[in-house]
Every structure is written in C-alpha cells, then in structure tokens.
C-alpha cells in the first residue's frame, strides 16, 4: 500500500506560437495559406471596428448596452474558422466575428444589441446558437447538440464559447461532466479575459489554470495564448479533428484580456489599474498578427490598407442596413412563443391589438 503520485491519462499542455514580441516558433507555425491568413486578419479587424462603432452608437443612444470584445479578437476568430458549416457553434456574447464568419449578417449582430429579437434568429442553414445571456447556461446546450451528433453517428463537432467567470457556474461543471462521460465531440473554448466584470481570474477559482479542470472530467485540457491567432487556430483545429475522430471533448483555455469595458454600463477604473491594461495593450492580437503577415509578406502596406478600407465599408454598410430595418410590429411578440399557439394566447394577442389600435400605435414602434 504505497503512497505515490497519481498519474492522469489525459493531456494538459500549454501552446504559444506567435508570441507578444512577434517571435514565431517555426516548428509549430501552421503556415496558413495566404487567403486563410488574410481572411482571419480581416475577421479580427471586423470585430475591432464593429466594436468601436457599437460603443459610439451606444453613447448616441442608437443601440442599448454593448459588450465589446476588444483584445479578444484572436481568441474567437481563429477558433470559429476551424468549424465546417455542418458543425455547430454555440456562442456566449463576445464573439461578433464568429457570427459574421458563420453567415450572420453584421446588421443581425447589431440587432441583438439594438434590442431586437431578430438579432437572435440564425440565418437559414447556419448551425449556430445565438448570444446566450445567462452565463455558462449555453454549455449544456453545446453538450446536448454534441450528444445528438454522437447518438446519430454524425462526424461533426461543436465549438462552445464561455468566459472565465462562467467556469464557476454549475452549468460549466455539469456540461463538462456529461461531455466526459459520453465522450462527446465538443470543444469548450474558455476566453479567459482575466475579469468577470469586477472579479479577477484569481478570485474566480483556486485552480492554477482553467485548462486543468478538464483532467477532472476525463479529457484533455489545453491552455494557450489567446492573443496568438496561430496558437488558437492550431489548438482548436487539433481539438476538432480529435472530436470528429471519436476522441471526445477538449477544454481550451485561451488566455487573453478584455481591453475594454465589461459592457458600456461598466467603469473598469473602479476595479483594475491602468498599468495592467497598458501591459496587456502591448500584447494586442491585431498588431501582432498584422506584423506577422507583413513579415511573411502575406500582406504589404498597401494591401493591409485595403483590408482596413474594406472592413470599414462593411461595418458602415451594416450600420446603414441596421438603421433601415428598425420598423417592427409589437404584435408579433405573440407569434413565436409556441409552434401551435394556444387559444388563450391568441385571445390575448387580439386584446393587445385592440389596445395598440386605441393608443394609435402601429407597426414601426
């Protein structure tokens, strides 16, 4: 009856390919083809420019509270491009370019923050779940979709986003546990941005890493530099391939930083220092990836400026289309609750219609 360390069967690794100083580990570099690399940069830049635009629009009262993703562009963009159309992506709420990549028009993303349910309706043929507001409650859904894939024998995978705060929720534990028990094809990607509103990562969990939590559920954990698009890409790609080959789930901890506010209703100077933010600004994924692309001659100054110009035009077009589609019918709040609407709900719809008529309110309000 000896006393000895217990060895666990599952892998727990750290991955960084393109570091904050711009150095590349040539052996690990996935050498993305130019088209993919430029597309990934463009996606990241789209998230950045949309973010900036949305914060302005919130200040102008044109949309409601907005949750920016500034600083986390690599973590969500490089992961989502690893998924095929028949795969599923389950979102949290700081992944605007994942929606965009998957086929959601940018104006649909704006609609959610603008207060329209239309912002949560996936376009036909897009296998995604919309923004999930209750933290971590989307993880069991991702697990359930992966469960369906396994039961039906479909060689597909699910990518599910969550934040570091979400790992404290019961739903995180329960979803991870079921995923491990049934060895489901799901990738839980935790964007560890260091802050859950005002609670720092170290006050959220006593775990040294979030990635190591996977070990307890019987599958692999991977901590990676979440501001390194190459590491996010390689880590997610491997996890997806493994999932589709029947190798079960992976927990990826993408270590990143929320450079902006939690939402536009938040003042981060109340709980964190400017020095800390400045330190992370130096690790910003966007200039880091741009420099890599310039060095590799995938982009040059001119073509990079063209990407910037295209992105700004795309965001401006989306804002325009969003502003043009503000007309909605308040009555249709009754139309999507059920597939088969019960008689009493129909009667209440009629009653509401009568109220609107009396009050002179019609479609457009």
């Amino acid at each position, binding site marked *: 009856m000896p006393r000895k360390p217990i060895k666990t069967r599952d892998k727990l690794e750290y991955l960084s390919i393109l570091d904050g100083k711009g150095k590349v580990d040539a052996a690990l570099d996935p050498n993305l083809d130019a088209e993919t690399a430029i597309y990934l940069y463009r996606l990241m830049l789209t998230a950045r420019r949309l973010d900036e635009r949305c914060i302005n629009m919130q200040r102008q009262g044109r949309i409601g509270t907005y949750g920016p993703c500034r600083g986390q562009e690599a973590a969500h963009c490089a992961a989502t491009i690893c998924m095929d159309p028949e795969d*599923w992506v389950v979102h949290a709420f700081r992944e605007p370019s994942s929606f965009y990549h998957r086929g959601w028009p940018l104006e649909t993303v704006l609609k959610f923050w603008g207060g329209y*349910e*239309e912002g*949560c*309706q*996936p376009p036909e043929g897009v296998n995604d*779940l*919309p923004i999930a507001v*209750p933290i971590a*409650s989307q*993880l*069991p*859904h*991702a*697990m*359930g*979709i*992966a*469960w*369906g*894939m396994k*039961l*039906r024998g479909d060689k597909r995978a699910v990518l599910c986003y969550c934040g570091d705060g979400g790992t404290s929720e*019961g*739903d995180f534990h*329960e*979803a991870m*546990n*079921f995923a491990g*028990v049934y060895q489901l094809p799901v990738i839980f990607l935790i964007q560890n941005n260091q802050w859950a509103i005002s609670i720092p990562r170290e006050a959220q969990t006593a775990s040294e890493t979030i990635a190591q939590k996977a070990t307890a559920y019987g599958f692999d954990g991977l901590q990676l530099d979440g501001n390194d698009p190459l590491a996010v890409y390689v880590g997610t790609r491997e996890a997806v391939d493994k999932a589709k080959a029947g190798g079960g789930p992976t927990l990826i901890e993408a270590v990143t930083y929320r450079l902006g506010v939690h939402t536009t209703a938040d003042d981060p100077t109340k709980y964190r220092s400017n020095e800390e933010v400045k330190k992370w600004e130096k690790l910003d994924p966007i200039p880091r990836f741009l420099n890599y692309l310039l060095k590799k001659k995938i982009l040059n100054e001119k073509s990079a400026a063209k990407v910037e110009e295209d992105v700004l035009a795309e965001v401006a077009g989306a804002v325009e289309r969003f502003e043009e589609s503000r007309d909605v019918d308040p009555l249709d709040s009754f139309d*999507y*609750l*059920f*597939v*088969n609407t*019960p*008689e*009493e*709900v129909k009667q209440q719809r009629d009653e509401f219609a009568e109220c609107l008529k009396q009050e002179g309110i019609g479609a457009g309000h």
Partner: protein
Amino acid sequence: MTTIEDTNTSQQRSKAGNMTMMNMVGALNLAMDDALRTDDSVVLLGQDIGQDEGVFRVTADLLARYGKDRVIDTPLAEGAIIGGAVGLAIYGMKPVAEMQFSGFAYQAFHQVEQHVSRFHNRTRGRYPMSMVIRMPYGGGIRAVEHHSESREAYYAHTPGLHMVMPSSPRNARALLLESIRCPDPVIFYEPKAVYRSFKEEVPEEPETMPIGKARIAREGSDISLIAWGAMVRPALEAAEDLQNSDRVSVEVVDLLSVSPMDTQTIVHSVAKTGRAAVVQEGPRNCGIGAEVIARIVEHGLMHLEAPIKRIGGYDVQFPYFARERAFLPSAERIANGLREVIAFE
C-alpha cells in the same frame, strides 16, 4: 371508473376487446413505448431510468426493448439533463426527460425558464423546443422532504410552456403520447400518489387527447368542483358522498392541463351550477386555484350565487410524512368545503 387496488406493475388483460386494465405506471410506460416504437427521434433520458427502470418502474423494459442509445441513464445532474435536452431538441431529436422527483427539478429550473420556454421565441421559430419533462409530484407516498410538494404554478406562470397534469391511467397515457408528439415543450406532472392506486381500461392502440382541454369527470347540477392531478380522486369521492348524504349534485371538472387552461369548460360548468369550489395540493397564494377563480370571475361572475371556496392548499411547507395524511385534502374535507358553498344564501 374502475377501482382495483394494485401493487403489481404487470398489465392485466381485460375482457373488453382491445382494452387492457392497467395502473398509471403501466399507462405511462405504454405511452413511451408507443413513442419510441413509432418515432426514431424520441430518446428518454434521466437518472436510473435504464437498468433500474426508474425508481417507480415507469420505464420498465424500455432499455431492454430499445437499447442504451434510446433509453439513456444519465449522471446525477438535473440541470445537464434539461440543458442537454435543449441541445438534443435543437439537433432535431425528441427528448423525453425524467426528473426523478419534482422537488429536484429546481436544479434545472434555470434551464427551463431561461431556455426551454424561450428558444423558439428567441430564435423566431428556428429552434422549436419539442420536448417533454416528466416528473412525479405531490404528497401521499410517505417519503422524506422534497418528495411531496406541488409546484405546478411555477411552470404555469412561465410563458412558453404547457403544464399537463393527468389524473387517471387512460388520460395519462393519452396526454403523455400527445405531449411527446407536441412540437412545443410540455412539463408533465405525474401524480405519484395515483401511480398504483387504481387501474383503468386503456386501449392497446395508441390514443391521444388534446392538451388544454378539461374533462367533466362527473356531471352534476348544484355546484362545480374544479380539481386536477391527484385531487381528482378525492374530489370524485366527495361528490359521491354528497350525493348520498345530502342529495347534492356535484359536477367535477378535471383540468388535465393547467396551462393552457380550459376556461370555457370551467365557466360553462359554473354557468350551469351557479356555485364553485376549487381543491388543490399546492400553495394557495398565486396558485392554480386562484387562476381558476380569476377566470370564473372574469367570464362568469353573474352566474355565481355564492363566493367561491378554495379547499386545501395552505401557504405552508408541505409537512414531513408523519403529518401528511392529515395535511392532504381528503374526500371528507372536500365534502365539508362544498357544504359551506351550498349552504350560502
């Protein structure tokens, strides 16, 4: 109605053609068997529903018949059972999830409120939540705390859900099959006190009945008694007693579905009798009885000859089982309540 005492799960063949005498456990099992047999997308999931056949044996033989990919034993986590069912439904399956007891379904309540009731609405029709969440509810089985309460009002108060509460083997089978076929989410509250308390003839061929339709369990002309779930049996007994002892004719309305609620059948009955009482196990404050009365007042006030009485349903915690027999509304207590309403002039 047949009232054979039964402690045996095995279904007893009746002499009446294609009808079989069975208790509610057998009837629910038959509905799930019908569904699993006829629809490949149906999967059952829950704790101890496979090898153990459910703690009440409601899923008897189903694992053996349909295998572990259709009848799935899960880890012990209500939230993941329902949250997982949301994902399964989105992926096009029809999950029928069992909560071992309604008292433990609160661990999944956030998934029910935040997602099951909302996904279809949230995605403007893209992802219907076609699923059934079955759970045994109510007192009367001498169990420890959290195994006895009736909280149908929580679910009825949540837009986007159907809340179904059968009262007998035949309607339990028909309503469960209908619930599984329903494209919208159904909370299916099973009166566990009724599970084995009596048998009834149930057709062998699949039978369904519409959700949202009450039934007249007993016709009468002097007073309407509105009941649902496990309270229907003592309500019928009380009606019989009052007929024999007081020559009072009681009409018993069995709601079957508390949401949507069949206002028309309730109000029609009260219009006929002019008096009404409600009996419930669950708490009175903002309960289903209060909703029944609100509808009578809204749509049938002028028919009333007496104030409406709420029988049972005190706003206290359901007591541990040493006190539960005294606490649960009995036929006698219901009859006394009805006498009060009849005596009002």
